[in-house]
Each structure stands twice: as C-alpha cells, then as structure tokens.
C-alpha cells in the first residue's frame, strides 16, 4: 500500500528514480556533490550559481564546522498560523542546522513535519532560480530588468486600453505584515480594489461572521490559553494535521483539567483519535447541529442569562429559530442522535470555561458566514467569550494570513478594516502623505474607488464572462500573482479557460506554482523568483494576533528578491513605462517616499512605522519594530499560559508579541490584548468590551452594554465609540493637549478614535478607563447580512434532494461586480444526485501546506506523501469493486471533470462520503504536466488537484468558495 503514511518505505523505488534523475532535467545539486566527492572545485560549472554561492553549497551538506563560530538567528516558521519560532544555525552565510527554540512560549522547541523541514526551503534545489518568460510555449531565462520592463509595459498597455480595474493583484498570506501592507498600498496607487489573498479562501467568512457579531474578525483568545479550557469543541477542523503544534496546548488542557475534548466532524480525523467524544455529522449541516445544541441548552435553562442580558442583542430571535430544531429534526437533517448532542450541549454550557475551535470545515461553505455566526451565538448564549479558557479559537491557515487580512489584502477594505468609503481613503491618504484627490485620479472613477473588487474565487469568471455582466469598465486582462497557488480555487477547468484568455500573467513566487503550468499559455507569461520569509526581515501576525519579528537567516538565494524589492523595482519600471507611453500616472516617488530605502528596497522597519502611524482602528499602533525585536530577544521571559512577561524583566507586563489591539503609541507601552473583549482587565492592561459598530440602538432597543464594563472604567455602563463630539459632550475635550488639539483642528476638527492621527482621542478615553471603540453588545442578530439569524440551507450540490424544498439556498443575486447564482445551480442537484451519489469533501495533510508547490518540492516532506488519493468508505468501495491502493477515477458534476487518484479505503469517512487532500497539482484530468515546469523546478511529487472536481457555490457575504460539500462518483480506473 503506497499511500498509507504508516508505511514510510513503501514507494521509494518509483519516486526515488525521478528524484535522483530530476525527471524534467537539470542537475540535482546534491547528487552532483556526491559525484564531485564533496570537493569545492568544479562547482562553479553549475552555470546558474554564482561562485560565492557555489562555495557555500559545499557547506550546505549540513556539516557544521565545529571549530568555527555558529551564528544563531531566529525567524518564524512559514507554514501554518501557530507561529513557531525557528532557530537557524548559520555559518558563512549558509543555513547549516536547525535547533529547537525552547524559549518560545508558543512552540517550546517543537515543530511538526513541515517546521522541522524548513531548512530545505532555503537550499532550494527546486526553487525558481531566475526570472523566466514564456516564448512560443517555451520558458526562457531573462534578467530582472528585462522581465520588469516588459511586465510594466504590458501593464500600462492594459491600463491605457481597459483601465486600472482590468489588472488583478493577487497577494499572499505568506507576505510579512510589511509586505502585505505594501502590496495593498500598491494596488491602491495602481487604482483598483481588485486585490485579494488567501484569506478569501480560508477564513473570509470567519472574519465577516465574527466581526459582524462582536466587532473584530479574529481569534479571541490564543493557542496557549486553551490550556485553561475545561471543555473544548473542535468543529470543522483537524488541527492535529493542520496545526500540529497547537495540539501541544490542546492536549495539555485536556490533561491538566481533565477537560472534555469533543470533535464534531464528518471525518474521524487524527484529532478525533485523541478526543473524548466524536460526533459524526453529514457535511454541510453545521447550523442544525449548533441549533440542536442550543435547543437542549434553552430547554434546560443552561444558558448564561446574566451575560446575555448585559452583553448580547437579539437572543430572543435566535430562540425562535432554535425552537424549530427539535432533536428529531436535527437527527433527520444531520444524522446526529439527540442524546449524544444533549451530552455535548450540557458539557459546553455547564463545564466552563469552554471554547469552540473551528477551521475551514466551518468556513469554506456557501453558508460559511452563517455557520460562523451560529458558532459565535453558541458561545454568547453560554457566556463563553471574553475570559480565560473561553472564546472563539479560530485557527487560521497560513503563517501571516491574520496579518495580511488585517492589512487589507482584500477587495473590500483598506488596511486595518477601514473599508472603502471616502472617510477611509481620506484617512489613508493622510497617513501616506498624499492628497485624497490625487488618489481619486488614479482610479477609473470615484465610484470604482468605493466599489469592492473581484475576489480571487471568481477571477476567471471576470476574464471570461460577457463584458456587460461585469460591473467595471472591462474584463480582467492581466493578473499579477504574488505567493499564491493556482490549485486553491474551485472549478479549475474554468480557471484554465480564464488563464488562457489573459493578456498577461505574472507569477512572483519562490516556486513556479500551478499558475505557471495549468493553462496552455504560449506568450506573455512571466515568472519572478521571490525569496521565502527566511531570506527577509519583517513581522508576521500569528493566529492569536501576536506579532513576531523574523530576522533574515540568509541572503536571498539564487537571483530571488524580497517582496519589498520586487515591488519597489516594479514601481520604478511602471514609471518608466508610463513615461514612454506619455501617461501622466507615476508610482514610485509618492508610494515609497515615507520609507527608508536600502539596497534598492524599502526596509521592513520603516514600513512598520508607517503601519503604526495609521492602523488605529485595529490597535496596530503600539507594536514598533523595537518592541517586537525585544520580545524575540526575551522570549524566555513570558509565561506559558498567560503569555505575560514576568516582573523584573525588560518585557514585564507585556503580552507576548503584543497581540492587537495594542493601543496608542509604542512609548505608551500598552501590553497588547491577549484575550479580546475581556472585561476583567483595565483597557490599559489589555482589557476590552464588545465593539458597538452598528449604531447605538435598533427598534428602540439599546445596542450598548447594560451593566457591564471593563475593569476601571469611569463610565459604568455601555457607551458609544469615542469621537471629538463624544469627548465634547462628556466634557473631556479640553483634556487633549494643545498639540493634539492643533492637529485635530488643523485637519477639519471632526475625528473619531480611529482617524485621529494625533492619538489624542484614544489617549483621553483610556485615561478614563474607557475602550476607545466603545462598549456595546454583541449581535445575535446581524440585520445587515442576507440571513440576519443563521438558517440552515442545503449545500448547492446535495444528495438530500428531499430537503431542498424546505431548506433551499439563496436566490440568484449579484455581488462583488459579478453575478452570483444560487437556486439555479442548486436545482441541478435533483438530476445530478442520482449519478453522483457520494459527497466529496477536502482538507489538509500534515506534510503539505496550501497549494503544496513548496512542500511537495521539499524532499523530506515529499518522501512521506507520494500519491494523491481519495478516502472512500469500505462499503462504497465494495459496491464499486474498488480495492485499497488501486487507481480510481473521481468524477464531478461540472465540466465533465475527473481526477485519476489512488483509493484509500478507510472507515475514517462515513458511508457516502469521500475525502481528498487539496495540496496536489501538476496532473490535470489524468494528464501529467511535469514537462510544463521550467527545467529543474518541478515539485518532486505531483498529483491531481481536488479543485478540478469541486464545483460552483459561494458564500453570499464574502464569495468564499464551497470546497467542503459537493458531489462526485468514484469508479475503478
């Protein structure tokens, strides 16, 4: 059996051959070294490698010269969002070893398979080594200057002909905070909101769901804080594979407190193997499960009545909906027995503190936002928010997806969630030191400046749909992709058509990615080698909102550049192209003037300082580069559970990594906020309240907290957000310093806590113990969403057509400049379901990450997982004459899609359900595309992508794609 990881030796013959010989050509540096007998001489014969690098390559065999000093440099793992510190040992500019980082309070020396193998990323046998362009269907090496000049000229041609909105800027959750922010700023200066990143396809619905409930779109507590929980529910997540180091904290909580660890999932995951209770549900029925739990909670009076009275708006409307979900109806829809759910509900409501942990099983759904809202409501009803051991512990996916989301790599907002309204643009124009009018001129129109752009889940629709169906001047013509896989979005057969129709495709990444090989493009395709974050300075925000500073381990290898340098040079090339074409627009000067430029790139420190000046709304203002570096230096001085710096140390009182919100200026020394909405602490000590973002009353009912306030608040009740007007009404306005007043009055006189760049409003509010954003109620009812109270809606493609009449999806609508079909597609289920009877769901493996190009190129990881597979239940396999380990064809209901993969027959999935991992690419519809990669850059392991099979279906709020529930058929191949 080749695909079972428990038999690590199995497939070594077959792939070992392709590994040794490097199937698409090129010379494996290590095998070359072996032939050369480790001698340095002759290495310079490797044409692409500069002599200095070649000398270094000798040391890269891992031999540390123990006679010489070894430099130890700390950076952060570039895979998931846990934020493990990596300690690199460096000699002569080469990363020669990796040591455990015992002092990090997050990982305490440990790693998962990926984290223990990161050194390989920077040795880069399979990395993209120099810029390349496609000429007549063949890759050719070019210089950075040639590549950038040609790209810039083509971008300006698209701009001249179709306008700035015809370029799609796809960014990355692998950027540092500074890179994310710079890329968003770049898109703004280009004049479009068509800028997005991976959050769209992982937790966009979480951000929308929780921000609409209690104010901010992020994990409320931290991995470490789970050690305090007495009950934990993990629903729609498999952290044992996706966030392995987090299990250290979960299992510790389970052991310390003898806590209940309940896993609710369609799959008996590796996490479920360690649970005290496992609940199997039908995929796509999360809301009925939650309402089923609340049914028991309300029926038995287990809810936290005082918490609801003080801090929650609209719970009665939830009760009305929940009343419909009797145990019998819940079992009919979800398959979960009433008694089991009752026990789970009782534990969650009574054995407190309890936390709810979720990942993409909840979010990647057509009802993603509603799922997240239902989860949040369960937490609110049981009073499990805003204290130790409680909360919505949302495990995010990538190393900086939280930071990239915070800095607005998003079609709907500027950095720090300011939105796209005129006020937001004026605020950022002030921070950037440019005039608002000059920013308007960069866009097609003022209207487009305020219109949310096209999300990454639909970019290809915006290329291929008729022009009159897209609400912008023209279709997408060019796409610039930084750090993003091409196999991460559903409906790949249609993506192929979109990619083929683009005038220009630029991929800037350490690897060529699926984008480079998926479509049959012949010209106008460029690959730019970008280094990893290990070759770059900058901060990244882990899932728990802690920022960690990563120090550059080695200089960028081969000809790769940092994101900062690539953007800086591209801006310069765009200026030259504009000048050639007599276009008035310019980029570099205005965009980069606030920064310190060193070695042809802005420094991370200077970008972070600009972020600190402008990101008041999210409390990204206190985390100066100096404070972050101090924390990295004194990691050992933080408590494991509270994350607080110990007394008598340079970081005393601070929370590790200054988790946002970290209010005010760095010199105010706000400690950051370990737990959001925690009223047990003073705001200056990291306390908070729910954020009133949606007015102060609705239908005569107050939206402000009643009888609840954060510790030490002088307003002992709810209050709205602070503005100049509120300060005046409270009689506190004159406590602003002359300087603060001068700034406010000199810039128009009316500001809020989030736009006052003098920081005076924040300062005064906090002097009185008040939270600058106000003290409101969380909203159980979010009236601005399509479903103000979450309701169950069957997946677009469902096998339960008998439930369609009662629980239909939303009608067809429009959003994000595009049409969005609902019921029209769902009605196909009736004819599709008989031929495609198996529910297909997808997820992660521990060895790989995301689109997988990077990890499948890493030989330590590739060896462990050599084949794409589908998990199929023994009953389904027997009915189809499928044996374990044989080739099967998985076919989908759209585009005649199919994938040739291996069968893993297992009870891990229930009958009628199949699972495929989403990290594979390089085979498409049964065809091996290895030859399409530039020589020597093909990942070791290739395989079919699950997203070749996945189908239409989008969340109405964020256009999140449906990857967790679709239909398929499986047959022996």
């Amino acid at each position, binding site marked *: 059996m080749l695909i*079972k990881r428990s038999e690590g030796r199995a497939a070594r013959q077959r792939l070992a051959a392709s590994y040794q010989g490097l199937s698409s050509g090129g010379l494996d540096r290590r095998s070359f070294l072996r032939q050369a007998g480790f001698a340095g001489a002759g290495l310079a014969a490797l044409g692409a490698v500069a002599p200095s690098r070649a000398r270094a390559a000798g040391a890269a065999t891992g031999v540390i010269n123990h006679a010489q000093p070894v430099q130890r440099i700390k950076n952060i793992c570039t895979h998931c969002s846990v934020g493990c510190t990596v300690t690199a040992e460096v000699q002569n500019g080469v990363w020669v070893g990796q040591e455990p980082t015992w002092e990090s309070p997050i990982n305490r020396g*440990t790693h998962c398979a990926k984290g223990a193998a990161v050194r390989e990323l920077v040795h880069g046998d399979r990395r993209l080594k120099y810029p390349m362009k496609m000429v007549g269907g063949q890759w050719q090496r070019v210089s950075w200057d040639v590549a950038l000049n040609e790209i810039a000229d083509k971008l300006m041609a698209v701009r001249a002909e179709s306008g700035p909105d015809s370029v799609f800027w796809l960014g990355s959750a692998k950027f540092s905070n500074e890179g994310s922010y710079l890329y968003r700023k770049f898109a703004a200066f280009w004049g479009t909101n068509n800028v997005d990143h991976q959050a769209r396809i992982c937790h966009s619905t979480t951000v929308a769901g929780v921000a609409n409930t209690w104010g901010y779109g992020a994990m409320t507590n931290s991995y470490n804080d789970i050690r305090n929980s007495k009950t934990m529910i993990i629903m729609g997540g498999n952290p044992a594979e996706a966030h392995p180091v987090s299990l250290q904290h979960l299992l510790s909580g389970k052991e310390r407190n003898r806590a209940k660890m309940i896993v609710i999932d369609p799959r008996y995951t590796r996490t479920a193997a360690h649970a005290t209770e496992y609940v199997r549900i039908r995929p796509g029925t999360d809301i009925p499960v939650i309402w089923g739990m609340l049914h028991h909670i309300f029926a038995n009076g287990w809810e936290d009545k005082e918490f609801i009275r003080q801090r929650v708006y609209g719970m009665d409307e939830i009760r009305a909906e929940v009343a419909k979900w009797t145990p019998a109806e819940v079992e009919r829809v979800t398959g979960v027995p009433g008694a089991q759910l009752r026990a789970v509900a009782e534990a969650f409501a009574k054995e407190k503190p309890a936390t709810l942990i979720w990942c993409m099983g909840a979010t990647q759904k057509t009802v993603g936002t509603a799922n997240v809202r239902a989860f949040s409501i369960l937490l609110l009803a049981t009073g499990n928010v805003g204290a130790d051991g409680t909360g919505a512990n949302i495990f995010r996916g990538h190393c900086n997806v939280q930071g990239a989301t915070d800095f607005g790599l998003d079609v709907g907002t500027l950095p720090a969630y300011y939105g796209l309204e005129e006020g937001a643009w004026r605020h950022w124009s002030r921070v950037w030191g440019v005039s608002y009018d000059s920013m308007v001129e960069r866009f097609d129109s003022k209207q487009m400046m305020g219109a949310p752009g096209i999300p990454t889940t639909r970019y290809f629709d915006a290329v291929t749909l008729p022009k009159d169906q897209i609400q912008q001047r023209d279709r997408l013509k060019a796409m610039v992709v930084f750090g993003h896989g091409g196999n991460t979005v559903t409906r790949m057969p249609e993506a192929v058509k979109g990619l083929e129709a683009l005038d220009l495709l630029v991929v800037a990444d350490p690897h060529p990615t699926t984008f480079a090989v998926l479509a049959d493009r012949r010209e106008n395709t460029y690959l730019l080698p970008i280094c990893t974050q290990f070759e770059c300075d900058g901060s990244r925000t882990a899932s728990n909102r802690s920022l960690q500073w990563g120090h550059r381990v080695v200089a960028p290898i081969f000809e790769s550049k940092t994101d900062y340098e690539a953007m800086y040079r591209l801006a310069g090339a765009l200026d030259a192209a504009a000048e050639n074409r007599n276009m008035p627009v310019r980029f570099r000067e205005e965009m980069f003037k606030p920064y310190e430029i060193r070695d042809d790139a802005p420094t991370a420190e200077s970008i972070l300082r600009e972020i600190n000046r402008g990101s008041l709304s999210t409390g990204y203002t206190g985390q100066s580069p100096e404070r972050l570096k101090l924390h990295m230096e004194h990691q050992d001085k933080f408590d494991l559970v509270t994350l607080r710096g110990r007394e008598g140390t340079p970081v005393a009182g601070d929370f590790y990594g200054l988790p946002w919100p970290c209010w005010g200026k760095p010199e105010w020394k706000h400690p950051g906020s370990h737990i959001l909405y925690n009223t047990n602490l003073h705001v200056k000590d990291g306390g908070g309240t729910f954020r009133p973002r949606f007015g102060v009353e609705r239908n005569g009912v107050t939206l402000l907290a009643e009888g609840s306030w954060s510790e030490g608040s002088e307003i002992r009740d709810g209050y709205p957000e602070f503005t100049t007007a509120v300060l005046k009404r409270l009689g506190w306005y004159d406590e602003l310093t002359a300087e603060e007043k001068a700034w406010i009055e000199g810039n128009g006189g009316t500001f809020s806590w989030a736009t006052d760049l003098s920081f005076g409003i924040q300062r005064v509010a906090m002097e009185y113990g008040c939270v600058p954003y106000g003290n409101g109620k969380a909203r159980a009812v979010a009236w601005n969403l399509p479903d103000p109270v979450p309701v169950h809606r069957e997946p677009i493609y469902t096998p339960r057509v008998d439930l369609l009449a009662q629980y239909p999806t939303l009608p067809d609508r429009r959003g994000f400049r595009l049409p969005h079909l609902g019921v029209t597609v769902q009605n196909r289920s009736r004819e599709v379901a008989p031929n495609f009877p198996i529910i297909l769901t997808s997820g992660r493996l*521990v*060895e790989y990450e995301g689109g997988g190009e990077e990890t499948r190129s890493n030989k330590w990881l590739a*060896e462990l997982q050599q084949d794409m597979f589908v998990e199929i239940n023994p009953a389904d396999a027997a009915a189809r004459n499928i044996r374990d380990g044989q080739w099967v064809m998985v076919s989908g209901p759209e585009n005649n899609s199919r994938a040739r993969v291996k069968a893993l027959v297992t009870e891990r999935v229930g009958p009628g359900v199949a699972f495929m991992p989403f990290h594979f690419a390089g085979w498409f519809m049964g065809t091996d595309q290895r030859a399409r990669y530039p020589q020597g850059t093909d990942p070791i392991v290739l395989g079919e992508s699950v997203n070749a099979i996945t189908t239409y279906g989008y969340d109405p709020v964020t256009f999140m794609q449906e990857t967790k529930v679709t239909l398929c058929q499986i047959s022996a191949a």
Partner: protein
Amino acid sequence: MARMKFLCDSDRCIECNACVTACKNEHEVPWGINRRRVVTINDGKPGERSISMACMHCTDAPCAAVCPTSCFYTTADAVVLHDKDTCIGCGYCFYACPFGAPQYPRVGNFGSRGKMDKCTYCAGGPQADNVSAEYVQYGANRLAEGKLPICAEMCSTKALLAGDGEMIATIYRERVQKRGYGAGAWGWRTAYRETLSV
C-alpha cells in the same frame, strides 16, 4: 553514566512526522532511508493510535548478537552504534531486530544492500566527535554537544521522550498520574526487558 532510552507516549503522538523530518534534516538522511518512522494502528477507526519508532538501543541488542562481523558496539550511555567500515550489508540485523530499525541504501542485483544505516541516537559513529568524516557516514553527534536526539527535542506534542531512562520514566509517570490514563511505555519490555509501572 546515563542509560539512554526512547519512550513514545502514544496518548500524545498525533503522527505529525516531525520526528521523521527532523531526523532527515539533522543528518541529511537520503531518500528511502528511514531511521525513524511513525506507525499507526487502527488507522481511521476508534482506537487509532500512533507510535514513533526507531532503533530502541536495546539492552543486549539482538542485532549485535547476530552480526557476523561484530560491527555493533554499545557506548557508555548504552547507545547501540555500529561501524560502517566493518558492516558487510548482510542484513542479518534486519531479521534480528524486533523494531525493523536497520535500513539499507541499495537493493541491487544479487541482493546487495550496501552498508546498514540506522538511528544513532544522534551520537554519531566510531570516529572522533563531530568531524566531517563522522557526519558523512553517521550524521550529527548531538550527544557529544550535550544535546539530546533531535526527534524527541522537536516532537510537536512532547510525546516522544529521549534521555536517561529513569528520568523519562519519571516524566511519563507524572504525566499519567495527572491525566489519569496511559497506554504504557510501548516496546520497553522487548527492548529493555522491563516495563514501566505507573
């Protein structure tokens, strides 16, 4: 002297394979050679458990007993090592080993296997400590630097413990007492002729 042992707490092991890649990375172990691997039983079913496995550095190691060239030796820390210059790749040790630890780089004509390779407990080989010749044949010698095996040091959930047998047994016992369950020290009876009672 310490009596070095491995102990895998199967109630904590999540089969993340960090031990496997940490080992590969530390010693640059070639593709196809697995000094350490994770084995899962009842895969996908209730009762699923994983155990990280490598050479257990047995007391009276059976590999040493059957080796026709006597290439095995036991260090003062009770780590079982072998001399690749003496090894003839006969494969007897593979048949003798209860844990499937010995690995061979080649399977060629006439069954030639090449020199046996296995977990060294991050203690290198017979050469002087931490010289390049030792690294090329056996990998890093962390024990000589005062460090423990990298697999255990980097274990994501601290399931895999390495160190003096008494000390890791105490850690495990305390853990079991605190949480109230424990499947025991897997493989200890076979490797060390003793069990760990809690």
